[in-house]
């Protein structure tokens, strides 16, 4: 399988991570070596195997998705990236998207 900078840049775009131009070649080399190891899985006989889903074959017990009242609003706001008074500051939502690049 041919690994080139297009594959790496596509993975970077899907990841929402900008890779500096000078680091692209090193990332291509890394991908080549790692994918070489991945291809070793072709030697494993998985004919008729189902993909792994869970360990015990029993579903994990789920908890109810119940809203919980947060007692301390300041504490919750403190955990956000940016705040102004009693509000989170959300990122700007206008501008170009990445859909075309992907």
């Amino acid at each position, binding site marked *: 399988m041919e690994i080139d900078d297009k*594959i*790496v840049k*596509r*993975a*970077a775009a*899907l*990841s*929402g*991570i*900008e*890779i*500096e131009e000078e*680091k692209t070649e090193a*990332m291509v080399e*890394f*991908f080549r*070596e*790692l994918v070489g*190891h*991945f291809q*070793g*899985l*072709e*030697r*494993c006989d*998985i004919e008729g*195997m*189902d*993909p*792994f*889903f869970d*360990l*015990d074959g029993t579903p*994990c*017990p*789920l*908890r109810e998705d119940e809203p919980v009242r*947060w007692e*301390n609003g300041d*504490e*919750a706001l*403190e*955990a*956000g*990236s*940016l705040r102004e008074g009693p509000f989170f500051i*959300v*990122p*700007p*939502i*206008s*501008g*170009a*998207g*990445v859909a075309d690049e992907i």
Partner: protein
Amino acid sequence: MKSEPMDAAVIASAVAGRKCSAVEVVSASLERIAAQEPRLNALITVMADRALERAAFIDRQVASGGDPGPLAGVPVVVKDNLCTRGVRTTCGSRMLGNWKPPYDAAVVEMLEEAGAVIVGKSNMDEFAMGSTSEHSRFGPVSNPRDPSRVPGGSSGGSAASVAAGYVPIALGSDTGGSIRQPAAFCGVHGLKPTYGAVSRWGLVAFASSLDQVGPFSRSVADMALTMDVIYGRDPRDSTSNERGRPRFAEGALNPSVRGTRVGIVREFREGVLEQPLAKAIEDAALALGESGCAMADVSLEESVTFGLPCYYIISPAEASSNLARFDGARYGLRMDAPDFVSQLLLTRGAGFGDEVKRRILTGSFVLSSGYYDAFYTTALKVRKKICAEFDRAFTSADVILMPAVSSFPFKKGNFDDDPVGMYKSDLFTLPVNLAGLPGMTVFTGLERSGLPTSVQLVAPRWQDQRLIKYAAVIEKKFGRSPVATGGCF
């Protein structure tokens, strides 16, 4: 306060019996940390104020006749990917900045309810991705047994804290060996419980089908004491479960293994390990034999051959999904940009280190259109085969004895330009995560060089207590792990 190693159980008993105060114990721990940290860099945050307040609370509880719990006044370190209310939780990353969680992780709550006092949060490979504890925004951790070497990773700071005698107990997380490998490198015990046996509520996720929280200690008795506190179902973690309620401390006290079978892995017998590590396996087998165990030959050929690529497809795939939440909007770092997409790219580019970027990109690649079946689906099928192979091995053995590592700790910088070389060092630990099994690194001694030897025990799912029993037998033969540089706990 005497300056000689003390077990957690000894501390708890002394504090509860008013032979010493929790404040004295915690102060001694903090002094030790202050003296050693410039050399080791094992901690990201020292929680001196919260620890001393907590210790004073325990002393008041004792004075008023209350039950301070089984870990009364025991100083503990937790890995910095476990949430601590109001105390920064960084995961060793710039991405989280000084994020302060508004809640404690379940295991933090459990430790504190048992009377333990958290004195610090340990340094780690960023987001638990690494095997050397060099990939941290806060700089590399040094191995207390030889500071020119790495302590292993990703829970290297927790392992180093116990080896250096900061604390008798620390918590780490293990996704592919991140407790067991640093335990082996630092010469302490480290246990990864069965997947689901310990709550992960409040653990910052790396790879959700593999992550597990577990303890480090220098004695099997302390390991058992900690497991008794943190083991069990937590309804807040939907992957947590419970099969009975084993009494770990009892297993450590009465380690009867007579008449059981120990599986020796055929593939690890010759030429794979550095000689002293191979000898550690032989000596541990002899010790178990003397205690009445029979040895059985088992094969883990597929786990050895395919475990590494399987793990390095599945774990990055899950990481790329889990770490998508770090978008510059909800937590920590936010770079300034005119629109959301630019902000996302800038923030994630600046916030994540190189190793995390490598893994996220790998995950996005193996999950992407055109490669999903070839890599991800294939790896899931191979994982199922690895689970089946362990199940087969456990039909002829009650526990498996194998190495945790193939070499002594690496020199710092050894893998700077060879990330895949670093990945290969996880060969002996990651199949255990893929199969969801409990595994434990057991300290077996120090070489003349001062570097530690160890073995790994692996048990069937939900047989975590079995590890404690066999480890206690091995410890009886080889002795407990000594403090690296003459510490107080």
